[in-house]
């Protein structure tokens, strides 16, 4: 497998993403490289844990119908994962109107994850790809099993922060659209409960005045 030609697609925050092939199919190789600046023990702990977790969590998410790339192979020693290649555009790079529209679908997906007791941990508009077959959710390195309101609220807060920074000019429309989709899956009572917990988290922040 390592004889395949590799082409660097992106240097992400925690992993390098290569285009490669797996059994003659176009594939993605995600390598969590050793970080020179990080203490070795800590570094090894994080990279191994997240590689294993990513494989597991993608598998779980698939069980209840969330579209994610297929996992071909996980190598916890080398901290490598081979994944299905997904063609499409990142939601982050779509035109503003489409982002607002797609936020509803994102809300649907996140609602489904939460309904089934999973938190993603890194919900950003660059972790959703719009493929011809619909939205695909990526990057489960920080995902985990979760059963508390707080965990779900953390997911929502992060997504809200992303909208309010990177997409500030469409923040309100996009956020409302997200909530619509989210509520459709989780119901009004639960959604309100989680949103009010988002505010509790925001109040913990420094010099907070909640938006």
């Amino acid at each position, binding site marked *: 497998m390592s004889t395949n030609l590799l082409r660097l697609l992106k*240097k*992400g*925050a925690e992993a390098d993403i290569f285009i490669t092939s797996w059994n003659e199919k176009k594939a993605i190789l995600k390598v969590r490289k050793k970080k020179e600046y990080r203490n070795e023990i*800590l570094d090894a702990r994080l990279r191994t844990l997240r590689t294993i977790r990513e494989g597991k969590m993608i598998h779980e998410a698939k069980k209840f119908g969330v579209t994610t790339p297929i996992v071909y192979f996980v190598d916890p020693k080398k901290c490598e994962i081979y994944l299905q290649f997904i063609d499409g555009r990142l939601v982050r790079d779509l035109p503003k109107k489409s982002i607002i529209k797609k936020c509803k679908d994102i809300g649907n997906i996140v609602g489904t994850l939460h309904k089934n007791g999973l938190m993603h941990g*890194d919900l950003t508009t660059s972790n959703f790809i719009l493929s011809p077959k619909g939205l695909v959710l990526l990057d489960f390195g*920080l995902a985990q099993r979760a059963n508390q309101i707080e965990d779900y609220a953390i997911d929502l807060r*992060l997504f809200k*922060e992303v909208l309010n920074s*990177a997409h500030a000019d469409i923040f309100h429309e996009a956020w409302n659209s997200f909530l619509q989709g989210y509520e459709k899956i989780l119901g009004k009572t639960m959604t309100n409960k989680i949103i009010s917990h988002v505010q509790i988290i925001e109040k913990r922040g420094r010099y907070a005045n909640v938006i």
Partner: protein
Amino acid sequence: MLSLGIESTAHTFSCAIIEKKGKQVKILSDVRRIYRPPEGQGIHPREASRHHAENSPQVLADCLQKANVKIDELDIISYAAGPGLGPCLRIGAVVARSLASYYDIPIYPVNHALGHIELGKMLTGAKDPLVLLVSGGHTMILAFLSGKWRVFGETLDITLGQLLDQIGRYAGFASPCGPKIEELASQSSNYLSLPYVVKGNDVSFSGILSATKRIIPKGLEDACFSLQETAFSMIGEAVERALSFTGKKELLIVGGVAANKRLSEILQSICKRHSCKFFVAPKEYAGDCGSQISWLGLLESTVKSGEKMENTFVKQSWRLDTVNILY
């Protein structure tokens, strides 16, 4: 143009005068007095404000004398109106208001955190950076976008400065404890496991605070080393995520904790990986100082006239991402 800036948000009372002639900017003077709480204790707001009140005449006099400027030659006066400790903020505001109204000089209430960023940008020459603001009051990752500094990541509870100070005080050091922790950390390389909490672009330090207290009995040097390695790696990862999300090609680090060598080593290594320019505010101007306030006043004076006296407020909670940037 001559600008006086007054800083009094927390432990530092400082006055500074900056001269701007066309594009040339020169810090003529920057005088500070810092309130030092007893060992093992933090800032007591009332005591700190008493310190500021007692020292303000001398600091102001020294500042004017060093710059060789008379009060009536000043073109503008700015003061840090927040965020910070209420009693401390009020001292700076009172000094600014008195001078402004007696000598009839335009007055500018400015945001302290923004002062950190703008002075850092001016001194380092960074143009469009991702900013890491790390101090006792802030741990934020910011980038400028359509008229405001937007928060791309921040601490969900306490700040990096607070974390270091609280551990230091627990171990019996005098605040600020960062330098002492850095010194002890450099004497160890024995890593003890501590909780590592990164949530998306955000970090949380409350867990590591309790856990570090628990491992101090195993050796103070080891605890300090492990604390720095873990907490700074968390910041490093959050910064890396924000860099890769925003695609910025510059990183600027400002705030008191910017003086820590290990932290800047980590961030430098990250910048190298993302082929991104690395800027750090000069040590002398990384912590709280009047120059930050004075410079921000100058920037604001290019787009608006001085504030009416009845609007010269102080705001203890004043988030940076609510400030409209017009200049």
